[in-house]
């Protein structure tokens, strides 16, 4: 019976190929757009280092003065002051490890050759960074924690910059110039396919750092601090100078500007949070933390979910795409219903000749599933081109300030997304076909046979 119904369904699709094609095409177009935006949204909420992301937390505390704006969202929490970072790191909690970072920039070239120099962002961080976030390395690796303390002039560069500056060779041990200093390359990272630059709280899609230098070096050489300093009113004016100057004043100030990340073992979050509270309380005696105590210790998952959920463009696009898909489905189902109605006579004959209702249902479900699968195939193809288009629009929109290869992975279908697209196609087509199928299987046998 299955086989018979299969051949009937197939014949029916072949019967009016134009109509079938229109039906499949509408579903495919709707699904194509839907899958395109699903893919973009999927990567936008893609969580890095998933096997441990739940246990890596950004530590933030509201050190600001009473007059500062209230915190409504975790992303509004200020960065951390140098004082607090140092105090916390120097009072270790068993099992908890930290890493810190801040942003800098510099002019970087291989020799004193100015014409090939690039101005680039530089991430200032410590040895723990590469372990905690599992930065993949092509050559060499991160630096040692002694290098942080001693202020060694070492640098980790990206694969892309290694290609540009060294022609892709293993450049470990070679030197490059950052502004007027000379630094030794200790590692070359592989393409780090994290969708968002989460580690410095920018959450920017793409733009992963090409250069990483140790904190000790950054402090010794006083390279620029490319940060927004969240200061108390008394130091508001000075914050413009903190970028290049006044290190001593900065580290004694109430300005938050550093990211503090903590790896906290499973189940110890509460303990760590009360550790933070116990740390803040005595600080209040010193005239710090004048507001009600507010700390936010969110892991990577929580942050990415929050940020991805607030992406207006994607949300908006998703809403449009869903309705778009709905219209396409309605459109397809109208055509399908019309096709079915044309066949009421045939169905009533088949019923008279003894076909059970369930057999008729099977036949039409099969037809619908076939349409769903065809729509799925074509839809995935359309999504492939849709994503290619979106990638190019993105590159065009940012005036090619990022390279295609650095973000291409965010516009790629994977088996999961393709599977999801097929499932969506078949399931949605089936759901909207329920009524037409129900209607056709309930045609009374022989009811249509009288009229000539």
């Amino acid at each position: 019976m299955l086989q018979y119904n299969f051949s009937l369904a197939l014949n029916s699709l072949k019967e009016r190929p134009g109509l079938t094609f229109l039906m499949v095409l509408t579903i495919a177009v709707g699904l194509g757009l839907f899958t395109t935006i699903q893919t973009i949204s999927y990567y936008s909420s893609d969580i890095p280092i998933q096997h441990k992301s739940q246990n890596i937390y950004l530590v933030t505390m509201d050190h600001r003065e009473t007059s500062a704006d209230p915190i409504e969202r975790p992303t509004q929490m200020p960065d951390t002051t140098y004082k607090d970072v140092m105090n916390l790191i120097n009072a270790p909690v068993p099992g908890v490890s930290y890493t810190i970072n801040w942003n800098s920039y510099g002019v970087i070239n291989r020799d004193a050759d100015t014409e090939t120099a690039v101005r680039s962002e530089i991430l200032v961080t410590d040895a723990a960074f590469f372990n905690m976030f599992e930065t993949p390395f092509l050559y060499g690796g991160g630096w040692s924690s002694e290098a942080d303390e001693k202020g060694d002039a070492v640098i980790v560069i990206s694969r892309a910059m290694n290609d540009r500056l060294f022609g892709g060779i293993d450049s470990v041990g070679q030197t490059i110039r950052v502004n007027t200093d000379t630094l030794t390359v200790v590692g070359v990272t592989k393409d780090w396919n994290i969708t968002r630059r989460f580690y410095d709280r920018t959450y920017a899609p793409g733009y992963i750092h090409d250069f990483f230098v140790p904190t000790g070096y950054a402090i010794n050489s006083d390279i620029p601090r490319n940060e927004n300093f969240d200061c108390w009113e008394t130091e508001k004016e000075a914050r413009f100078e903190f970028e290049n100057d006044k290190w001593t004043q900065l580290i004694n100030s109430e300005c938050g500007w550093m990211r503090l990340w903590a790896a906290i073992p499973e189940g110890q979050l509460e303990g760590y949070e009360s550790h933070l509270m116990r740390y803040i309380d005595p600080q209040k005696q010193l005239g710090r933390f004048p507001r009600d105590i507010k700390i936010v210790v969110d892991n990577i998952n929580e942050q990415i979910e929050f940020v991805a959920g607030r992406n207006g463009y994607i949300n908006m696009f998703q809403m449009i795409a869903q309705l778009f898909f709905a219209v396409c489905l309605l459109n397809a189902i109208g055509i399908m219903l019309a096709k079915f109605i044309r066949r009421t006579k045939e169905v009533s004959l088949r019923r008279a000749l003894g076909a059970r209702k369930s057999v008729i249902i099977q036949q039409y479900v099969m037809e619908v599933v076939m349409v769903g699968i065809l729509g799925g195939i074509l839809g995935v193809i359309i999504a492939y081109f849709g994503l290619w288009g979106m990638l190019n629009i993105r590159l065009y929109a940012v005036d090619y300030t990022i390279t295609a290869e650095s973000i291409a992975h965010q516009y790629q279908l994977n088996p999961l997304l393709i599977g999801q697209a097929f499932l969506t196609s078949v399931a949605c087509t089936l759901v909207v076909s329920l009524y037409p199928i129900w209607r056709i299987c309930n045609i009374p046998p022989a009811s249509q046979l009288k009229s000539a």
Partner: protein
Amino acid sequence: MLKMENVSKIFRTELIETHALRKVDLHIKAGEFVSVTGPSGSGKTTFLNIAGLLETFEEGDYYLDGQNVKGLNDNQLSDLRNQKIGFIFQSFNLLADLPLFQNVEVPLRYRGMSAKERKQRVEHALETVGLASRMQHLPTQLSGGQQQRVAIARAIAGEPKFLLADEPTGNLDSLMAQQVMDLLEKINEQGTTIVMVTHDDQLARRAHRNIQIFDGQVSDMEMNATAELVKSA
């Protein structure tokens, strides 16, 4: 073969109730060839639909081949139709896009027969109606009489005990009508019970027995000469 006791069918719309059939009592024996006549709107079609298990009824009992069909569910009715009843319609109702073979095969498919048995039966049925050589033709390539013979082949392919014909010659000219009647009589002679609805008195008279339906009631059962001959024989 077919026994109706007190069968009534009422159509209800928002405004009126129509008794399509009123307390019909009827007994058709195995092997009989019965014609049903009556004016338009008399309830002929309703009778045929109930007899053919295409419609349900409100009151009474209906025994088909000794089985009471009242209260059977849709699936059981489908299976009964498939196995025990063959249908012949005025407008043939062949599937236009399928060749003759596949048209005749339809009821056998729903019976779940093996391909080999289907082939055998379809070929046999088409031979019976004299169209075996046209097996791969499409219905549109045939004349009306030939099409109706295909429909008959479809009806008998499953070897039903009971054949229901609704104005089988209504769309045919008299020569073709005669051929179709000859075929039906031949089938009847081989033991299949036939009930034929018609408005043609001359054709009706070729049956063993004629039932008249008037205003939803089976008012008269008139044995005709042939039937009596059979009886007495």
